[in-house]
């Protein structure tokens, strides 16, 4: 299932996507002009804090947002070059669930409590792959074995409440894999899990990208997970991508003040107890607040006058790295001066 096209044509691509929600208090734009792509066999991360728009982006990409009140106002969602927004519901259904699968954050709530594991696993297999009962069952057992579940035959008759959180997330992944998807979108797949289980699940997803050539979109707030698993990284803030680049490049030379500040503010396991952390002052913006200009400006140590007028565009260079900031030069020279990224003037 390795991509049949040559390198360069993305497996999945969001092109300038914007999403609006109508509320009694006016229109909110949780996703604003967002573009990213993922190649077959690669992992693209969307990283950001709550309210940054990373989950809404994923739901929009899957066409899972309720409309109304949510509306995709512009942009394209391209799977192998075909805009999913142009497909009729029947054609969309053939892609979604079969070619594109989603793993959600809460394995406790995203499985149906009154259906057996076997039923939930075989349901869309029979729909999308037109398998008979016995074939679907055999495939379900094979899938459970593949995601590391012992005694898969017995598990089929069990219900979600029989399983631990880690097991349920494995079942979710098995369901996602049921129709041999080419793309998996995983929204905080391990946030509810313990660290040793988190690692098992992430290694499993990594193996799928490397062995089966699946493209993976990994949505997380954890900068360590991004560093370990992602090839490309999109840092989101206030509904926009503020920085985009290859993981190595972005961590080594962050260009947006928010990325710099974020990397600076997390305590690290490989650093001894030391001085105080450098937190980012203030709090993330509420999606409902109207802010002209750059949404990070109220918390930014590098803000210029221009930042208040309009949001800076995301300009990507030849190496695929870019930041949406008018003052990148100052961010970079400051980082050079100090040897390592520092945001706040002493």
């Amino acid at each position, binding site marked *: 299932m390795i991509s049949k096209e040559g390198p360069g044509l993305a497996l999945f691509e969001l092109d300038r996507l914007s999403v609006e929600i109508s509320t009694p208090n006016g229109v909110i734009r949780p996703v604003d002009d967002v573009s990213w792509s993922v190649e077959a066999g690669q992992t693209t991360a969307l990283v950001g804090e709550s309210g940054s728009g990373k989950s809404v982006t994923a739901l929009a990409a899957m066409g899972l947002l309720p409309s109304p009140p949510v509306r995709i106002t512009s942009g394209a969602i391209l799977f192998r070059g075909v805009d999913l927004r142009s497909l009729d519901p029947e054609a969309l259904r053939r892609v979604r669930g079969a070619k594109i699968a989603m793993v959600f954050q809460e394995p406790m709530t995203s499985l149906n409590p009154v259906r057996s594991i076997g039923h939930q696993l075989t349901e869309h297999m029979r729909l999308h792959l037109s398998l008979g009962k016995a074939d679907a069952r055999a495939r379900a057992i094979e899938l459970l074995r593949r995601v590391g579940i012992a005694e898969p035959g017995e598990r089929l008759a069990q219900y979600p409440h029989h399983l631990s959180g880690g097991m349920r997330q494995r079942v979710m992944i098995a369901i996602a894999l049921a129709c041999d998807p080419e793309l998996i979108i995983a929204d905080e797949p391990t946030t509810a899990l313990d660290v040793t289980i988190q690692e*098992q699940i992430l290694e499993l997803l990594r193996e799928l990208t490397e062995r089966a050539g699946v493209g993976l979109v990994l949505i997380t707030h954890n900068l360590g997970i991004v560093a370990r698993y992602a090839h490309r990284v999109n840092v989101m803030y206030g509904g926009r991508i503020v920085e985009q680049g290859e993981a190595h490049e972005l961590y*080594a030379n962050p260009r947006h003040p928010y990325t710099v500040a974020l990397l600076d*503010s997390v305590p690290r396991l490989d650093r001894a107890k030391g001085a105080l952390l450098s937190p980012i002052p203030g709090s993330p913006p509420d999606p409902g607040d109207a802010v002209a200009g750059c949404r990070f400006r109220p918390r930014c140590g590098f803000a210029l006058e221009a930042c208040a007028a309009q949001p800076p565009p995301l300009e990507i260079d030849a190496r695929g790295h870019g930041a949406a900031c008018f003052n990148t030069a100052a961010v970079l020279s400051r980082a050079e001066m100090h040897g390592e990224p520092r945001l706040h003037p002493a």
Partner: protein
Amino acid sequence: MSAAAAGTGATVPLVRVERLRVHFPLRRGLLFERTVGHIKAVDDISFDIAPGETFGLVGESGCGKTTVARALLKLVPASSGSISFDGTDIADLDAQQTRFFRRRVQSVFQDPFSSLNPRLRVHEIVGEPLVIHRALRGRELRARVERLLETCGLPASFASRFPHEMSGGQRQRVGIARALALEPDLIVCDEAVSALDVSIQAQIINLLSRLQSELGLTYLFIGHDLSVVRHLCDRVGVMYLGRLVEVASAEALFAAPRHPYTRALIEAVPVPDPVLERQRDHKPLPGEIPSPLSPPAGCVFHPRCPLAVERCRAEVPALRTIDAGLVACTEVHRAPPTSSRPGARPGSIPAP
């Protein structure tokens, strides 16, 4: 020697937990209820907390760390063993002494969205302990509340707000202000920064550090995020399925973990550095935490342990002093000498 004596040197501990067990009975039947077994939430745990120290308890869900905190707050009784606070067993306190104890020991909880009463304004939330324990009223109360808010980095004007008018970080500051109201000696922080966004988490971590140095507070810090625990704690205890498997200074524990579970736990955490992470090659710890209803015989960790031998299935390993720490494992000498994490030095433990 009890395990508690090690690690803190000559100072008199503020908290001494000795051979603590908290077992919850499992009951069956409606009319003739009978006890069919026990969940050993906490099983034979000992540690000390010195005045001014931050002691961390880490472990995965169900390991018993929160039950230890609840026992220490006198919210659940010990099944056996003892907890002494400032030299007195808290089980022996009479009603009046218990009230005094509750003033001196306060707590900060995980979720600032559900741990504040949504119907009360901030000045009522923070002022409530002052009204009950100090009988403060009127202007005096208001002034004290505003000073507490300012100590926690909130403007005094927040006193008239409701919890829903504040962000998660601000709510957690209110929770901390309330905990400080009675000038406690010990604050139990149960996952106090876990629910916060990354950029806010650093603010609260710094606030906790600053309050400790300004007010001489002692913390019991319970967490599952090892990076945060390393940053905040002086000494750390690692729990697994109700038992303490390792206790050491944070420095030694993270630089050179000895117990195979501690090692697995530390190695499971990715650090925000792609270069270091891509160099690292190790296998995730297999299996899952067994049910506390039927814990494995012998060492509770043996079904997942890479070092397990026959005797681990039969014998419960006691905490033994190894270098400067305590480790409940008889096979540590067989651990591979190198860790996958660059910078970690399992072979050498720095002098305390």
